[in-house]
C-alpha cells in the first residue's frame, strides 16, 4: 500500500513535469480546443440563424381569387418563417414560371393554390349540410341540385434537395391555415343558412380567432431559463469533443513509454502497474478538466464579446462540475485503453482520432440528436459523447440537478472503469512471467 502510494505520487508528478515541459503540446491542448469552440460556435451560429431567423423564401401562385386562396397567402405572409414571393421581375408569377424556378433550384418551395378552391369547399360544405337537414328543408340553398365537388387542392413543389424539416414545416403550416380557412368558409355557409331559415343576421364573419392556441414552451420548471441557442448546443458539444480528443496525447504518452523501453524497465520493479496508470489518469484528468472549464468560461465570457448569445450555465453548479469531472475521467479512461491496445504511435493516432470523430458524429456533436433519423437516434446512445452532451443539455436547458443526471454520470463512470480495467488487464497479461 505504501509502495503503491509512493509510486502513484511519483508517477503523477512525473507526468505533470513531462506535460509542462512539452510547451507546444500543452498549448495545443488548450488553444486548439478554445479555437475550436469559438470557430464552431460562430459557424454554427449562422446556420442556426438560417434555421431560426432567416425566412424561407416560397413562391406562391394563387389561382383561387377567393377566401381560401387569399387567406392562405396571407397566412404565409404573416408567418415569421416564410417570405412569400408572388411576382418575379415585376411580373405576376405563373405556374410554369414557378415550376421552372423550383426545378432550377433557385427556390426550394413553390405553392400553387388551384382554381375554384373556395368554391369547391363551399359547395362541399353545402352538400354535407344538405345530407344532414331534414327533407322539407332541402331547398335552403335554392332549387339547384348540389353535387359533391372535388376537394380544394394546393400543389407544393419541392426542390429535391429540400431538407425534410423544411418540407414538414411548410406542409404543417399549410394544413394549419387550411383548416382555419375551411372553418371560416364553413361559418359563412352556416350564417347564410341561419339568415335564410331564421331571419337572424349574424353581425360579423366570426371564427377569425383561434380557439385552441398552441404555445411552444421549453419544458423547464424555471421561468428564468433561456431557450436553447447555438451557444448552448455548440459549447458543450465541442467541449466534449475536445475533451475526448485528449486520448491522442495520452495514448501517445503510453506508447512512447512502451517504445522507449521505460515501461519494460518499470515492469522489472516491484509493485503494481496500476499505480503508474493511475498517475497518468490523475494528471490527464486534471488537464481535461481545466480544458473543459476553460471552454465553459469561453462560452460564458468570451462568446458574448463576439456577438454571440451568452452561455447560461443553469443553476446547478455542483452538477455541472461533477458532470465535467466524470466526462474528464471517461475521456482519460478511453485514452488509457487506446494507448494499451494500439501497437504503435501511428496506429493510436489514427485509431484514436477517427474513433473520437465517429463517436462525436453519432453522439450528436455535429448534428444535434433531435435532427437525426430514427435509427441514428438509437445508435447515438452507444456513444459516451452522447451521454456527456445530454448531461450538459439537461443542466443548461432543463435545469437538471445532480440526481437528474445520475444515469449519465453512472454510464460515464462505468465507461471509465471498463476502459481502465481492460487497459490494465491487457498491459499485465500481454506478458506473463515464468
Amino acid at each position, binding site marked *: 500500500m*505504501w*509502495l503503491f502510494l*509512493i*509510486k502513484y*505520487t*511519483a508517477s503523477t*508528478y*512525473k507526468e505533470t*513535469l*513531462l506535460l509542462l*515541459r*512539452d510547451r507546444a503540446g500543452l498549448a495545443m491542448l488548450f488553444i486548439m480546443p478554445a479555437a475550436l469552440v469559438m470557430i464552431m460556435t460562430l459557424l454554427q451560429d449562422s446556420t442556426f440563424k438560417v434555421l431560426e431567423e432567416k425566412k424561407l423564401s416560397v413562391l406562391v401562385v394563387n389561382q383561387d381569387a377567393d377566401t381560401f386562396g387569399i387567406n392562405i397567402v396571407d397566412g404565409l405572409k404573416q408567418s415569421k418563417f416564410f417570405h412569400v414571393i408572388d411576382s418575379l421581375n415585376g411580373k405576376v408569377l405563373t405556374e410554369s414560371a414557378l415550376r421552372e424556378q423550383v426545378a432550377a433550384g433557385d427556390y426550394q418551395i413553390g405553392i400553387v393554390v388551384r382554381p375554384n378552391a373556395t368554391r369547391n369547399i363551399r359547395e362541399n360544405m353545402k352538400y354535407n349540410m344538405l345530407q344532414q337537414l331534414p327533407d322539407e328543408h332541402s331547398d335552403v340553398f335554392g332549387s339547384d341540385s348540389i353535387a359533391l365537388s372535388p376537394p380544394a387542392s394546393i400543389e407544393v413543389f419541392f426542390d429535391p434537395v429540400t431538407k425534410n424539416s423544411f418540407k414538414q414545416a411548410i406542409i404543417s403550416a399549410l394544413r394549419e391555415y387550411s383548416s382555419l380557412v375551411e372553418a371560416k368558409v364553413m361559418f359563412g355557409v352556416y350564417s347564410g343558412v341561419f339568415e335564410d331559415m331564421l331571419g337572424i343576421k349574424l353581425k360579423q364573419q366570426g371564427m377569425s380567432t383561434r380557439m385552441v392556441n398552441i404555445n411552444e414552451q421549453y419544458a423547464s420548471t424555471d421561468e428564468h431559463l433561456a431557450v436553447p441557442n447555438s451557444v448552448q448546443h455548440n459549447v458543450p458539444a465541442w467541449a466534449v469533443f475536445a475533451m475526448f480528443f485528449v486520448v491522442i496525447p495520452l495514448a501517445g504518452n503510453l506508447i512512447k513509454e512502451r517504445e*522507449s*523501453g*521505460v515501461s*519494460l*524497465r*518499470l*515492469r*522489472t*520493479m*516491484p*509493485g503494481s502497474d496500476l499505480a503508474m496508470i493511475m498517475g497518468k489518469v490523475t494528471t490527464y484528468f486534471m488537464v481535461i478538466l481545466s480544458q473543459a472549464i476553460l471552454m465553459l468560461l469561453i462560452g460564458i465570457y468570451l462568446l458574448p464579446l463576439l456577438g454571440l448569445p451568452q452561455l447560461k450555465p443553469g443553476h446547478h453548479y455542483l452538477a455541472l462540475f461533477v458532470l465535467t469531472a466524470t466526462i474528464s475521467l471517461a475521456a482519460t479512461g478511453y485514452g488509457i485503453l487506446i494507448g494499451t491496445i494500439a501497437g504503435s504511435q501511428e496506429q493510436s493516432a489514427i485509431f484514436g482520432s477517427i474513433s473520437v470523430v465517429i463517436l462525436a458524429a453519432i453522439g450528436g456533436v455535429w448534428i444535434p440528436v433531435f435532427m437525426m433519423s430514427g435509427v441514428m437516434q438509437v445508435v447515438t446512445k452507444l456513444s459516451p459523447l452522447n451521454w456527456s452532451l445530454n448531461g450538459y443539455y439537461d443542466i443548461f436547458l432543463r435545469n437538471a440537478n445532480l440526481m437528474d443526471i445520475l444515469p449519465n454520470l453512472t454510464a460515464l463512470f462505468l465507461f471509465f472503469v471498463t476502459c481502465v480495467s481492460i487497459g490494465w488487464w491487457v498491459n499485465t497479461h500481454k*506478458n*506473463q*512471467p*515464468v
Partner: protein
Amino acid sequence: MTNKQDFIEIKGLIKRYPHAEANAVDHLDLTIAQGEIFGLLGPNGAGKTTTLSILCGLISATAGSVSIDGLSMKSHPDQVKQLIGVVPQEIALFDKLTARENLLYFGQMYGLTGKSLRNNVENYLRRFGLTDRKNHRIGNFSGGMKRRINLIAGILHQPKILFLDEPTVGIDVHSTNVILEFLREINQQGTTILYTSHHMNEAENLCSRIAVIDYGKLMAVGIPAELIRSHAGCENLEDLFLQLTGRKLRD
C-alpha cells in the same frame, strides 16, 4: 555468510516467440553463484536479451524454469524484483526530464523516498562524474552519459543481483572504463552481476566466469582462462568465440 552456489538457476529453459520458426533460447542450463560477475556472450540474435528478459520476469518461458535466490518470479514477484536491478540494452529514460528527475523517479518506483533517496542520487551522480549535468535534460546528453544514467537507474535500490544487457555498447573508452570500474567495485561489495556483451576483451578482464551461447544453445561455460586453455588454437576469448560460433563477433 557463505556465498550461495545456485544464486541464479536456469534449468532447461526454452523460449519460442509466437510464430517463430526456431527457439530463441534452446534448452539452456546455467547456475550462477553469489558474488560472481558472469558474462553471457553471444553474437547478435543469440538469445542473450531473451534470457535476461525471462530472468527479470518480463516475458514468460515456453518451458523450463528460472529461480533467483531460490524464489521464482511467478510465486514471489515483488520479492524477486526487490532483489534484482536491471539495466536494459536500450536507454530507457525520459528525455524531457533532467538526470536528477529521472533518477528520483526510478528510485521512487522502488519505493525509495525522501532524503535518503536524494542523497543516494547525488552520490551516484558524483561517482559517475555527472554532478554538474544533473539539472540538464537527458535528451541533450551524449550516448556515454545516457548509458551512465541508465545504469544508475538500475542500482539505486542497491540490488543483490544486477542484470546488465550490453551496458557498454556504442560508447567511448572513458565511459566504458567508468562503468566497468564501477561494476568491479560493487561486485567486491557483494553484488552478483550477470551481464551480456559483444566485447570479448572486456569480458575476459571483467568476468569470473562466462558462457557462450549461440542460437539459444549453450556452447561453452567456465572461467575465461580455462576455456581458452582447453580449446586448442585459442589465444583469447575472441578466438574461442570464433571457433565456437563460426562467426565473427560483429557482423
